[in-house]
Every structure is written in C-alpha cells, then in structure tokens.
C-alpha cells in the first residue's frame, strides 16, 4: 500500500509539521495580545509579557466595556456589517445573474459589463467622491458607509463566473420549462447551488465592512458615532511621541492592557463568523442534480 511507504510517512510528517507551524504563526500573536490584555499595567508596558499574563487583571476589559463609546461603536459596526452585506449581496446577485446571460439573451450585455469593469479601473478619487457623497446628502449617516461600496465589481465578477461555470444550463432550462421566471430561477435554482461562493463573497464583504475605517472618519461628523474600526485605528497606529507633552497623556495613551483588550474584543466577531460559514466551503455542490 502506497500510504504505508516510508516516503509517504516522511511526507505526511513534514506536511503536518509545516501546517502546525503555520497555524502557530497565526495563533501566537493572538495569544500574545490575549495575554497582554489580562496583564498588569507595569509589566505590559515594559513588554515583559509573552504568552502568559503577568499580574493577572481584568482591568483592561472592565475599562473597555465600561467605555460607552466603545460599546456603542460595536453596535454601529454590526449595523454597518448587516446593512452593508445585505445590500451588497442583493446587488451583486442581481447584476451577476443578468450579466451571466449570453448576449443573445440579454442585449447590450457587453456594454453593461464594461460599464461595471470601468469602475474597477477608474474612480473619481478622494475629493470628488467626498463631494459626491456630501451633495447626495449621505453625510453623517450610516448609508455613507454602505452605499458607496455597495457593488464590489471584483466580487460581482467572481459570482458571475461561478454562475457561468457551475450552474448547469440544463437546470436553468428545466426551470424555464416548468414556468419559472427569472426571479424564481435565481432564487430557487441559482441561489441554492451557489452557497459556497455566496459564503465566500459574504465573508469578503463582512470582513471589508468590519475593517474599513477611513470612510467612517471622513463621512461621519461625530466621533461618538464611529464604527469600531475607525475608533480602533487610532489605537493600533504608532504613537506620535512628539505630540505627547505630559505624563497624564502618555499614561492614557500607552496603556497596552486596555489596547490589547480592545483589539481582542474587536477580533471576536470575525473569528465567530468563520465556523458558521466554513461548512459551506467544504460541502459538495451540484451533487446529483444532473446526469450527463
């Protein structure tokens, strides 16, 4: 048996070692942050903590969760992710479905396709985009974070290609024969078949919305309404020491315990989303629907 051979065993051994090391590489920084977030101030600021807390304390979490604007910003981030992912996925599905048709079925398809691709290649730039958002009246509302990024053309093309390659033509034709319209076909045929790619693209979109911070900074007028990543951005950038001119400020700014607690809390939702989406990645796709 080949898998009992020495070469096979050596390969498996090396492979496993490599994967374990890779996993550790991803995991250890997170464990370090976790350890720091539970450590006392003095040890944390002197960088004495590695993977186990020193002077165990819950101070970091107490201060973070006691901070009203931090908790508020988590809610805003969740709102943004839900709205943003919903709107994005709806638009992406609809446009990808239409564009996946042949030119014969959808006249002007190529022109429309280029219309989308054009926005991938060129954009207005920061200032015109800002002026646009302002003049449309989106300033200072959650929609300024959702609508400008609603159609991610790259994701749309991914979806489109999935529709073209993975949805059997015969299934669609069968649906039409049974009297389904386009919406029915999209919802009852395309969607269930496309769950893996839907999961992938949703994950992209969720992570994008969870992580983007710059639009929050420029479109929102009040820091009390920042999403979490905009609030956190100032925590993870390097301190500008020339701006610090008193011990009180340095004391407040360099609090690694609190910073680590905040960073850790911010990663939890994304870490939680993965397992729920993961099952779609491994599940078989068009099993048994068509016999060729």
């Amino acid at each position: 048996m080949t898998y009992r051979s020495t070469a096979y065993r050596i390969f498996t051994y090396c492979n496993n070692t490599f994967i374990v090391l890779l996993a550790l590489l991803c995991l250890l920084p997170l464990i370090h942050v976790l350890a720091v977030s539970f450590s006392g101030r003095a040890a944390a600021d002197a960088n004495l903590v590695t993977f186990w807390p020193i002077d165990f304390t819950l101070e970091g979490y107490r201060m973070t969760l006691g901070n009203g604007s931090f908790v508020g910003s988590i809610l805003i981030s969740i709102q943004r992710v839900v709205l943003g992912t919903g709107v994005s996925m709806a638009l992406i599905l609809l446009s990808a479905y239409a564009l996946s048709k042949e030119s014969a079925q959808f006249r002007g398809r190529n022109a429309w396709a280029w219309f989308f691709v054009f926005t991938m290649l060129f954009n207005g730039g920061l200032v015109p985009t800002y002026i646009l958002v302002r003049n449309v009246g989106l300033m200072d509302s959650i929609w300024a974070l959702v609508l400008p990024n609603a159609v991610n053309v790259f994701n749309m093309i991914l979806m489109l290609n999935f529709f073209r390659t993975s949805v059997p033509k015969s299934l669609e034709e069968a649906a039409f024969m049974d009297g389904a319209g386009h919406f029915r076909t999209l919802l009852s045929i395309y969607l269930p078949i496309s769950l893996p790619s839907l999961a992938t693209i949703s994950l992209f979109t969720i992570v994008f919305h969870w992580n983007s911070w710059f639009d929050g900074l420029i479109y929102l007028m009040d820091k009390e309404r920042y999403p979490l990543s905009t609030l956190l951005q100032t925590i993870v950038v390097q301190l500008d020491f020339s701006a610090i001119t008193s011990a009180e400020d340095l004391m407040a700014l360099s609090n690694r315990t609190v910073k680590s607690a905040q960073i850790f809390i911010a990663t939890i939702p994304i870490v939680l989303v993965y397992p729920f989406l993961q099952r779609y990645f491994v599940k078989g796709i068009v099993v048994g629907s068509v016999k060729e």
Partner: protein
Amino acid sequence: MKQLGKSGKAAAQLLLLTALTVTAAACSGGDAPGASKPERTPGMTESAGSGNSGADTGSADAGNTDDGEDAGQRLLPGEKFDPAITMTTARWVSGSFAFRDGEDIANNVHTDWMREEMGINLDTLWSVQEGDNYITKLRLALSAGEPLPDVLVVGDMQLASELIDSGLVQPIGDVFDAHASDIVKAAYNRDPSIWYPVYKDGDYYGLPIIAAGDHNDNVLYIRNDWLDAVGLDAPSTIAEMETVMEAFKTQDPDGNGKDDTYGFSFSLGSNVGRGDANMIYGAFGAIPGIWMKQDDGSLVYGSTLPEIKPALAKLKEWKEKGYLHPESGIYDRQKTYELFNSGRAGMIAGEVWLPVYPLPNLAQNVPGAEYDVIPAPTGPDGSAARWGKPFNAGVVLVNKDFEHPEALILYLNNLFEYWNADNPKYENGYFQGYDYDIIDGKVVNGSDIPGGQISVHHYFLYNSQRPIAPYQYQDTLTALYEGKAPETAFERYSYSLGEMYLKAGAVAKSQRDINVYDYGIGLTDTMKTRWDRLQQMESETFVKIIYGELPLDEFDRFVEKWKAEGGDKITQEMNDWYDEVNS
C-alpha cells in the same frame, strides 16, 4: 542666562521695529487721529505681570483701540456676551480620553462654562479622534470647498501656514491687544518667538498656543542602586558617563549573573538627536535637527555643524562597546521606556515628567530598583547643551468672516484666569468634579475624585495643552522642591505627583541656560519640496555612521551633499524669514 538675554534683546527689537512700521503704515493710510497704537504687536505690551487683571484701572489699552465694535471695553473675565453669540468650531479628541458619563466633546462641562461664564455657545460642527485624522478631514473639507468654522485649532504648522496664506483667516493682533488680560499678556510676552509662526505681512493671523516647552526639557535619569552596586558616583561629564556605562555593561549591576544589561536606553531612530540623544550631541556643542542661532544672529542647521562629527564618533564607540542596545537604531520612545522599565538599562534621558509616568513602572517590575535624576553631562570642553523644547503647540485661527474675534480673546482670558491668585473662582482648579473635588470640606485631586480625575485641558480650544506661561512649570516645581508650601491649585496638584518629579523640574531649571532653541519654526518654499529627502538622508547617514556601516568621514560628504541639494537655499530662506519676523 545667555539664551534669555538673547531673546530679551530680540523682544526689544521686535517691539521697536514693529512700532515703527505701524506708525509708518498709520501715516500713509491716513487713519483718523488717535489711531496710533503703540501696542500693535500682540503680547508686546508692558508686561504688568501682576495677577490683578480684575481691575480695569491702569490698563494702557482701555479706550485706546479703534477697531470699531466693542472699542474701549476690554473683555476681561466676568464680561459676557449678551445676547449670547454662537462660535462654530471643529474638534479632535485623544483616543484615550474618557469623558464623564453622558458628556461628549460637543456638550460637556466646558461648553456649559463657556455659555454661562462668557455668553458663547460653542457649536462643534464635527469631531474626530486624534490630531492626524483631524488634519486629514480638515484638508478634505477645504479641498471640497467647505467653509471654515469660526475658530479652528490647528496643530500642524504646515497646514496653519497654508491657511494663513490662503486668506481665509483674519488677523487678530489688534483684537488681542485690545482685550487680552494682563495675565494673558504676561504669558504671551515671556517668549516673543511664539508669535513668529502666525506673522505675515505685518500682522498676526492667529493666536499661538503656548506649549509647556520647559516641561519637556530633558534631564538624565540613572539607576541609583546600580551605581551603588558598581561603586561609582553619578556622572557629570561624558567621560564619567563612559566609566559608568562600562561598569553597567560589564559588572552585572542587577546581579542576575547574566550579561544582559546596557548602559543607556535610547533611540537612534528616525529623528536622530531631536529625541533623547540631544544632550549627548549637545555636550559636543551642536544639536542636530534644529535651526540654531549663531553668535552673529544668523540661523544654521545644527546637523551640518562640525561639532556633530565628534559626537557621532562617540556614539559609534558606545554602540560598538555595547553600551547601547543593538536595536537602538529602530527603537522608538516606547521601546526605550521598555528597556529601562524592565530593568535592563542604567540610564535614560527624557522629559521632566517621566517620574510621573512611565518610570514608576520600574519599581513594580524590578523590586528594589531606584533611580535618581541628574543634569545633562558636560563635554570635552566643559560645556553642556540640550535642545530647549519649543513653546509652540499650534495656533487658533479665526475665520475671516467671523464677526466676534474678541470672543476668542475673552475665552483666552477666562482660561488664564486660573493663574489669577486674586480670583477665588479657580483657586482649586477649573471644574469641580473634574480636575478637583471637595469632599467633606476638603479639596481632593487625582484618584480621590469620584470617577477619577479628568484632564480638563483636553476640553479646551487649546490643542490639549494646559494654558500656562512659558517656564512656569520649571519655576513652580523648583520652588516646591526647595520647600515652598503648595498653595495654588497648580502647586497642590504638582506637589501630589511626588518628589522625584519636583526634583526633575529643579534639575531641569538649574540647566536652563544650556537650552538651545529651534528658531526655524516656519516652513520655507524649498523646504516644502526638498525637506523630507534631506531629513531622510540625514537620519540614514547618521545611523549608518553610528552602526559602522559608513566611515566617520562620510559626515563631511553628507554636509556637502546636504548643502548642494537644497540645504543652502533653505538656509538662506530660513534666515530671510527670520529677519522678517524679527524686524
């Protein structure tokens, strides 16, 4: 006192020459009689220095101003706008700043105070977190053609000078003269150079924000217990420092049997010399990274002076002998604190306030660790020097369309009323329940305040700086260290921060005459295009020389290259600018 003498002379010249220009302008302009204003230059009025700003009598400016509205009435604390006026602004808040429950930057005890005390409704149009983001957002708003708020705190001097050049802001020199209280004038009079950045074409286009430069002057902190362990005295010269560092490096001062100690914790990183190493360079006679004033009155860029070369040679030697951490080249300040606070380095140079934070962490991490504060060391010729930290922390700009620029001065007067010993209103601090509280009839500070102390200066339209006159920190700390009983709110607060802090202030003050100030506060045209590159070349060359990757003589080539690639032109522009603001 050399430095003080110089600036004093400069002040006199400034006063004289501005008075002349103004008289000339008044003549040619054909102003109405009585329009001559001897106090044209802000802050240059007779420094009464008294805290008695409550009295209107004897004020030279009262009734002597002619700028139309509100003439003749100085807006001293106690005055208020009736009906109340609205003043719009935009704010940034430090990410670490925690408000009292229910408050935010737009509505808090400070905005209430402005409304009730001065009749000013402060309307915050937008707010962001951190100063860098503020600059980004402000630039974007300006690019998109949005109007400026009525008043605007700008910490970034480049943006401030662009705004001043754009013509969107109004001069406030006259308004300042007409309304500033004696305390404010005395504070703004201590160091005339704080007005330089806002000077343009004979007027002052903004209110400079005074930074507590003297609070940031560097002193040397050294591990006392290590000195005892190796049997040496605290060093006072560079040579003695070497002996001490050699012992710290080789004699295992922490007694753990490992060769894991360093002589000195400092960063050689991006801003070579401007950080913690400035007193080492200074011992050899030049401070890199700043525009030093030479004996003939001209400005020269410190990094290009020949005195830098022996300093680089010395740092290279220290690096080779292992007195400095091998990663000093990429250290930032946080890293230097880490090295010192984890008990692996014997010395650290830094601000007067380090004993308040982060140095208390040392004793927590290393039981029994003690440190002391000592003056900057002297060099081979017996003299010492350090970078005198700037007294500028940005400006408050006033929109040219704002009808009540005097409201800003009234606000400033109220801020500085804290220092008025005759006004009981602020005898304990600014806001009860924030920076002080009274519990059972006793005044308490710090963590004794329910909910913890709030650093109220983050509320102020003053770039998060404490409104304080130049040198006030060192003077107060020294007096307290020498045994003065704390009386005022500021003294009581300072006193509560511990004796080592007071001592650091006293040590810093004892060396005030070695301060070398940066006179190149402006940003010249050539600098806008070339400066980043020159700075990069400088820090690369310096670090490589110290690390031994380049020979020491590379410094001479650096100076030639620096001059050829725009340095000479920038020096010329800088001197022209300095002559202009100084005349």
